[in-house]
């Protein structure tokens, strides 16, 4: 009760400083969590695009279905492989026709000339990407396999794009994180330094450090919690907006962007609270005179 009153007084005396400090923290954090969001979504997005990339294993024409089964189970043993699908020659032709979007172009090709295909998809295309060459060589060695082929150039292109984005986002995240930490610390310090004299006087009239810093630290906790909550709310609103905007560009787009999950949110908020408390503690300690 008594403490609550002092808390209120503490807040009243320095309301402006606390308000602006919180605002700065909100903005800094919003930037930080926004870029965290961008990072995880880029990851997720390129992953999804890459998922569409498959390895085509062309089999010898007129292969027996027993042999096909054997090869299929052979391939399925590979740890990276997610799914293996058999495509008879007729389907291959249809696929080709779809690729060219016009039947007449391929009218000279009969299914007999075409080999059946095993379409192999992967759990993690980017990780697979690195060992794909190796794998395809191994598969080519299997009896009954005629040729292994995959859209390597596209996968490489996408993988590179992803790496590029990853490096950039990580640098960005690092820069923003550093800046945010620094700014939170500094703002907390600046706002307390305006009360240098007050803290000095309190320590001179016999108040214990706990008595003086108690309300300041509790307010720091509130400040950190409120600021990170507001920042996350802000970013969540942006996310909702982006979800809508994305629907326009990706007609097939479903489920929305990935947002921080519960444990990430917990870590973020407690990290900020910790930073605020630590900043307040050090800043206020400087002005005590014992």
């Amino acid at each position, binding site marked *: 009760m*008594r403490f609550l009153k*002092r808390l209120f*007084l503490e807040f009243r*005396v320095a309301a402006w400083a606390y308000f602006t400090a919180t605002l700065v923290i909100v903005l800094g954090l919003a930037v930080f969590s926004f870029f965290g969001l961008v990072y995880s979504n880029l990851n997720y997005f390129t992953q999804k695009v890459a998922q569409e990339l498959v390895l085509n294993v062309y089999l010898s024409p007129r292969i027996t279905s027993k042999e096909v089964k054997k090869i299929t189970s052979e391939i399925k043993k590979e740890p990276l492989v997610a799914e293996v699908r058999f495509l008879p020659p007729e389907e291959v032709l249809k696929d080709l026709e779809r690729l060219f979007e016009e039947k007449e172009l391929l009218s000279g090709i009969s299914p007999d000339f075409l080999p059946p295909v095993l379409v192999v998809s992967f759990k993690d295309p980017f990780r697979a990407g690195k060992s794909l060459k190796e794998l395809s060589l191994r598969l080519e060695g299997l009896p009954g396999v005629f040729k292994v082929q995959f859209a390597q150039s596209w996968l490489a292109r996408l993988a590179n794009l992803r790496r590029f984005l990853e490096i950039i986002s990580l640098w960005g995240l690092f820069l923003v994180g550093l800046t945010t930490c620094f700014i939170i610390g500094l703002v907390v310090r600046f706002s307390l330094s305006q009360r240098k*004299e*007050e803290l*000095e*006087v*309190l*320590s*001179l*009239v*016999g*108040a*214990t*450090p706990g*008595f003086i810093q108690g309300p300041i630290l509790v307010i720091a906790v509130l400040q950190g919690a409120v600021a990170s909550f507001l920042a996350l709310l802000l970013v969540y609103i942006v996310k909702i907006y982006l979800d809508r905007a994305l629907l326009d560009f990706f007609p097939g787009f479903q489920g929305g962007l990935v947002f921080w999950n519960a444990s990430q949110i917990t870590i973020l908020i407690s990290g900020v609270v910790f930073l605020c408390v630590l900043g307040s503690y050090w800043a206020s300690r400087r002005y005590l*005179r*014992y």
Partner: protein
Amino acid sequence: MEDILTLERVSKVYEPNITALDEVSFSVKRGEFLFITGPSGAGKSTLLNLIFRAEKPTSGEIYFEGRPLSSLKKKEVPFFRRKIGFVFQDFKLLENRSVFENVAISLEIQGIGEDEIRRRVLKILERLGLSGKETQPVRQLSGGEKQRVALARAIVNRPKLLLADEPTGNLDSRRTEEVMEIFEDLNAEGTTIILATHDEALYAERHRRVLVLDQGRLLNP
């Protein structure tokens, strides 16, 4: 009566070469009312600051109730200071807080009940002619009013030792009389008082011990 305070060859040197106090030694008996005087810059405030442990001596030792201050741990300092009231020469008030809050603070830190605080603070404010100013922020007060608030804060928790640094410099003669009366009352109740002043009228005709400082040296130990 035993000594409440003893200084042994206490010196304070401010870097690079200002000797504010030079080997000062004296004792104060419990219940004494002691004046310290001397010209401007003699070291009066420095002496009181050292006793209050707002600063540490460069050499020498100060004993309060027999205990050397140098042995005080940081944690003990606030509890030590609660036994001492200090009227600072530059007041050191919380400028943005009200008169009431400024005086109440030295009781609040000791966890005294609200009603008790209210009663004691209002009583002392009235005695110092500050009734009606309770809710005014200190920054809006006149010089003399600030001085009286500083005084109220120092004596409201009935300290064992009262250090008063020029406590009447901004007061007219009638107020000065009143304040001195309060000091005499406190002293009669057992509070030891050390009063630093340059105003000879304050200690003339009072028949109290007067220490004279000049350039950091005690002229009459």
